[in-house]
């Protein structure tokens, strides 16, 4: 029976970790991104007049499609470890508010762009990178890649967005880290800066 286990081992090495399963994950990840694009465009049509409706709609999309705590924790970097529980909770709530206000604002610049999903590939051990393009009638297409984490049982969430090779999560992390460093390692200074930023975005900044 020994040769049988060797054969099994060889098969496992040569055909690692179920190719069919990976393809299925990728299809699900692509569907998630495509669906997000469709819902976003639907939201643009419905709420073009009301900015309050846009903010609520964006928050809804963000919560269902994105893993906000994972992105938020990543964006705080090593300072997450030193933050108190109260700071973490407040930070995550403020982080969500800020991202929602930021994207609601971007919706206002909508000008008949369309969205196509081009494909995907596995990323690391547990993620799928979905490739897409935003086609602008007045300019060159923008390449947007979505990093989707699959936690099994149809539970997929976006954990990063890469625009023309630039990771939004890394950009946010570098910015937050700079703010904390310039304030002598004080996380509360970052929280205050985010509060100010949310207020300025709400004021139509």
């Amino acid at each position: 029976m020994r040769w049988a286990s060797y054969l099994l081992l060889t098969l496992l090495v040569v055909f690692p970790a179920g190719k069919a399963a990976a393809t299925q994950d990728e299809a699900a990840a692509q569907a998630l991104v495509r669906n997000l694009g469709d819902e976003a465009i639907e939201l643009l049509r419905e709420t073009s007049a009301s900015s309050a409706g846009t903010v609520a709609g964006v928050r809804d999309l963000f919560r269902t499609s994105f893993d906000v705590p994972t992105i938020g924790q990543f964006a705080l970097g090593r300072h997450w470890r030193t933050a108190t529980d109260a700071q973490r909770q407040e930070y995550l709530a403020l982080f969500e508010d800020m991202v929602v206000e930021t994207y609601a604002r971007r919706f206002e610049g909508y000008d008949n762009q369309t969205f196509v999903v081009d494909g995907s590939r596995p990323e690391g051990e547990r993620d799928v990178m979905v490739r897409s393009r935003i086609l602008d009638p007045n300019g060159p297409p923008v390449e947007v890649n979505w990093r989707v984490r699959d936690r099994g049982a149809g539970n997929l969430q976006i954990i990063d967005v890469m625009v023309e090779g630039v990771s939004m999560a890394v950009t946010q992390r570098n910015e937050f880290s700079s703010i904390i460093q310039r304030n002598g390692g004080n996380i509360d200074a970052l929280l205050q800066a985010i509060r100010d930023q949310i207020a300025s975005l709400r004021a139509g900044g």
Partner: protein
Amino acid sequence: MGGCAATDTVDGDGYGEVYDPIEPVNRVIFAGNEVVDTILIRPVAEAYRDYFPEPLQNRARDILRHLRSPLILANELMQGDFEGAGNVLARFVINSIAGLGGFIDVANHNGQGIPFENEDFGQTLAVWGVDAGPYLVIPIIGPSNARDAAGLVVETLADPIGIWARFADSAVLDGFQYGRLGLSIIDARARTISALDEVRATSVDFYATMRSLYSQFREAEIRDGEIEQDIPDIPDYTDFEDESEEPVTTEPARGDEVSELPPVPRLDLRPDVNR
């Protein structure tokens, strides 16, 4: 020659910060550039974008790119990218003849054909293994780093029309080069007005955001737009008490990837946090 030349790994997870040892000086230059941009460059670029006929804007962009062809070709060859070199050469020949001396990018008409790809000596140095070095903000030009600034100097000296102008000692050629430089700045700025306005309005620390964007964008250019392979992991959200040393994982470990991070428990605590 790691994949993250622009970022060091102070956090030990591959997502360190941009190396910026002279940040106070850079911030002063950055603020100065903001002033020059606000009172001079941006208004001119905006007028150019809004009032200069769009077909002529496109001809200007095409000829500016065409004039860079010799430098791009040299860089493709120095990077060992022979397919890229072939593309530059094909574009140059097609656009010189059918594109009326480079005024019309017929080689890439309506996004069909051979697209323009920018290469410069900073990218070549990166392909050769030179690290980005300290982040620098250059007066007027803006975000850069030691490697890219060196690349810029070399390109300026090696530009064939520039060399010709220096040897010919002709006022016409000098004027042409100054006009070309000015047009390059206005053309580049005109195409980034709305994007930069957006970044400015939505960032908490504009300087830090631009520093991060520049470094990542250059890394993407160096990779020629390929998606980065083996990008570092983003750890799952975990609450403080759950950061135990005990590895909790349902996946069999694979030998080919070495992770710096202990596996983290996959606990989704969102309902407690957000609602």
